[in-house]
């Protein structure tokens, strides 16, 4: 399934759940926040939430900031 992840095209091969995508991308789930098409998806929904083609996913982590 074709997705846009952090602005880049990505071919997802998993079951289309957010969880699967995070696994696929090797993200540290406990350190990651996520939006799909501008909507924030809470971690508790990641196993159930399913993605659709061309969804825009933002995966975010904490970095230094003032």
């Amino acid at each position, binding site marked *: 399934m074709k997705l846009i992840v952090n602005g880049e095209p990505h071919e997802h091969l998993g079951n289309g759940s957010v969880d699967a995508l995070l696994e696929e991308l090797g993200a*540290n789930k406990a350190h*990651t926040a996520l*939006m799909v098409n501008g909507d*924030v998806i809470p971690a508790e929904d990641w196993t159930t939430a399913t993605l659709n083609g061309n969804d825009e996913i933002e995966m*975010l*982590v*904490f970095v*230094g*900031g*003032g």
Partner: protein
Amino acid sequence: MVKDVLKIGDQELGSRLFLGTGKFSSTQMMIDAVKASGTELVTVALRRFNREQAEDDLYGPLSELKNVQLMPNTSGAMNAKEAVRAAILGRELSKSPFVKLEIHPNPHHLLPDPIETYAAAIELVKQDFLVLPYIPADPVLAKRLEDIGCAAVMPLGAAIGTGKGLSTAEMIKIIIRDANVPVVVDAGLRSPSEAACALEMGCDAVLVNSAIAVADDPAAMGAAFKMGVEAGRAAQLAGLMPTSEVALASSPLTSFLSSNDK
């Protein structure tokens, strides 16, 4: 002596120095400075996950710190809608009630937008955040943000990263005089003396980042700011002397010295 606790909303903090975590040359440098500073509240920003820069991920290092809460900021937000979105994302990760609301559309001066900030604050208060907005030193805006439920206000001393100190002191004094929520000077502070001055003026806390992060020795500077903040707070509580237009002797001006030339 009773402990001097800072209350923001329902949260209690034992330190009046808040730290930003940006600009440090390494994560270890930042962690050392945070520890040396004695801060109990540090700001963090959100950035896209990047497998190649996993070491930038501060979640792990920061979560190991005892007695330090996170305050995600909304940097990068160009308007109220984006700021609200950033705040929600930050809370997802931090599980912290605090959000540093910052909306500064102009990268040249990074100064806050009062209109968007006000709109975002209304929404974030509705969503039960403890909202600490980064704002211009504007007493009416500060009061309106207090009135709509912000937990504190954070007027700037000078533009971010300039180190120009308390250039807005006259307006900050008015904000303090009228405020019923904590007033935190955010941005512009360059030195512990400026931080001390802010506390002496009656500010409840200061938020410092560049001054510590880019110091030759960040950990030592963190410790210096800790002392400066404590010095300023202690002075404010001890009651500073008034200034005087006329000199007032601290020694007796006795005449014995000239009284006996023969």
